[in-house]
């Protein structure tokens, strides 16, 4: 049984980031996009924790807590905007909302 090393964590984290990024870029439903963003943030958190352990420094964990807080706030605001948007546009699809262009 191989021990779980930092490289494993980093590999997982990279996979999560990749999945999240692809999700953000490809999915049309804004709810899914928001969920994909959560995936990206969690990839970051995983990275921070992994390095915190590897470097024996608590700073990484503190940053991770900040990021979680931030993600919560972001989800709340994002969902709020999403609901307001739905009320106006009757859609949650990102490609149908393209008013901000020249």
């Amino acid at each position, binding site marked *: 049984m191989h021990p779980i090393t930092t490289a494993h964590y980093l590999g997982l984290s990279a996979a999560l980031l990749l999945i999240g*990024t692809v999700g*953000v*870029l*490809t999915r049309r439903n804004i709810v899914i*996009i928001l969920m994909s963003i959560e995936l990206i943030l969690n990839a970051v958190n995983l990275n921070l924790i992994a390095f915190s352990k590897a470097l024996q420094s608590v700073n990484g964990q503190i940053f991770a807590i900040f990021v979680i807080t931030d993600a919560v706030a972001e989800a709340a605001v994002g969902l709020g905007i999403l609901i307001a948007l739905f009320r106006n546009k009757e859609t949650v699809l*990102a*490609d149908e*909302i*393209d*008013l*901000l*262009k*020249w």
Partner: protein
Amino acid sequence: MNFLDQIWLIPLFPLLGAVLMLLFGKKLDPQPASDVAVAPGVEHTHDEHDTHGHGHGHGHTHDHGHDHAHGGGHGHGSPLKILVSLLCPGMVLLSFLFSLGAVMQLAQLPTKVHQVVQFTWLAGMPFHMLDGRIATFSADWGFLLDPLSAVMILVVTGVGFLIHVYSVGYMAHDNGYYRFFGYLNLFVFFMLMLVLANNYALLFVGWEGVGLCSYLLIGFYYQKKSAADAGKKAFVVNRVGDAGFILGMLLLYALLGTSRFVDVNHALQSGQFHAETAGFGVLSAIALLFFTGATGKSAQFPLYVWLPDAMEGPTPVSALIHAATMVTAGVYMVARSAALFQLTPATSSIVASVGAFTAILAASIALVQNDIKRVLAYSTVSQLGYMFLALGVGAYWVAIFHLFTHAFFKALLFLCSGSVIHAMGGEQDMRRMGALKDKIPVTHWTMWVASLAIAGIPGLAGFFSKDEILWQAYSSPSGSQVLWLIGLVTAGMTAFYMWRLMNMTFYGKSHVAPEVEAHIHESPATMTVPLTVLAIGSALGGWLGVPKLWGLPESFRAFEHWLAPAFAAAAAEGEHGGAHGASIEWILMSVSVAIAIIGIAVARYFYHTKPEIPEKLELRLKPLYGLLLNKWYVDEIYDFLFVNGLAKGGGRAMAAFDLSVIDGAVNGAGWFTRFCSTISMWWDTWIIDGAVRLGSFTVKLLSYPVCFLQTGRVQAYALFFVVGVLAFFGYYVIR
């Protein structure tokens, strides 16, 4: 009462009269034009313009006063009008009495000079004199009574009073009664200021004042265009002379630092200045400028042209202002400056020449004039020429003597002509008169006396003064045979034209229109009494200056002795050498008497015995006759040269200059500004704005490709981020 210290009262009386008349006169004379009384049987309308305005020959003027006045001198209107008639002549009479008193007291003084300075009138202007010293310009309001001004005030107030009395009758039916007397009194005031002033500046006040009154009175019938024009002409022509007088006065001030006659004479006699026998110095210039002023006021060539036209005024005005007093102001002024003229032989000879030339020129014109007043007007110019001839040859007292006698007989002649015109109902053309002798006897015999006097018949006033002038012109060091000869010919002409006038008016056949003939009448007493008094003066006035030759007691030469102190300096400088013998003087005197008698005889022969001769002569000598009748065309020449040439031509030139240069400059500046602003606007529109627009256009153009990146889709943007980030990292990884 000490009259000498109260000299200021003398001019005050007429001023008072004038102020009363001109301020309150309208209330005293409420007569509107339609109320004017006209004698029965006279069919005249009161519309003065139409009454006589047609059917008269050329050069004919009318005295509108007669449209009203010939009904007779009685019938003064309201009691208020009588008040005017008493007040105004009364004021002049008061002046005359005060003058008499003052002159009598002056005679008691050993120096015969009395100066009263009331107050300083102009003061406090420092200026540089010619020699660089600084003097303060000041002029007194002061009076100087000396023998010269004594003669003048007596003439002005004495003759003036008689003419005022005459005017009461003459102007009785005229509308502007109060106005006339107001002006007349104002004139007497200014004339007295002129002759009583103790300095040139105050003399100039009187000088201009009499000019103003002359203007007002010439234009008295201002509704008539010719009268208004004549007034303007007199005023403008006088200004030419006055400009010279002012310059002379200022130059004298710059030279001597004073304008008081006493101080000026003192300075000139102090030996500081020498006679400018050679060349033409500053003294000669001053004298010449003074003489220029005198030619204007005293109607000498070339400025005499206003005087004949001045006859448009009422006849008493012609008598008082344009014959007896005002026109002699120039003679007085030159005589007053005798000390100056004595030092300037060059100017004096100019004075003598101009005087002689004017005398003969005016006399030649008078030979053929048909208007009774114009003959007398040219006669006045001619006689004034005599006076200047006397002044020019240094015989100052003789000039004043002639002024004195002339005042009598010329005032008388004018008043008689007024009486004739009055009798004729406004007719002034002598060709329509004749045989008036018995119809207006008083006028006839007084005019007879005056004509004898002016012609130079021994025993009458004109003889003594004219003969003395001729003698001085011959014998004085600055005189010459030529001047004497001109004077003699003029004397002959004078006798001729005066007796031509007498014959055409009083003798021979009547040429009077029948409707006029019916009401010819002698003038009222207010007019005939002054005539009589003046006739006595004309007859006897000359006995104050009998020639030395006659060997009479010295009291018969009182005039010369009286004036001697005034011209003491002049006399000292110009004492005759006595080179001419008594026999020559007797011969010359006989010649002048002979020529006077010949003139009278020829006139009688031409216009009484053989009345057809003048007409034949007219035909035979047509060019000469036309030349004389048209006054040598001097008026036309002046019209051409000065009125049309200088004034109107100059006006046109000024207008052209204004239009092209002044307006041109303004318009050009405006055009140039507009031109510049057009360029500036073009620059702004195309270059400045163009650059701004070009910048914005460029930015817009460049922004087009970038615009296509902005799709509005969030995921596209996110893709750009990712690509960017990948590219960024890729760069570092690959490097």
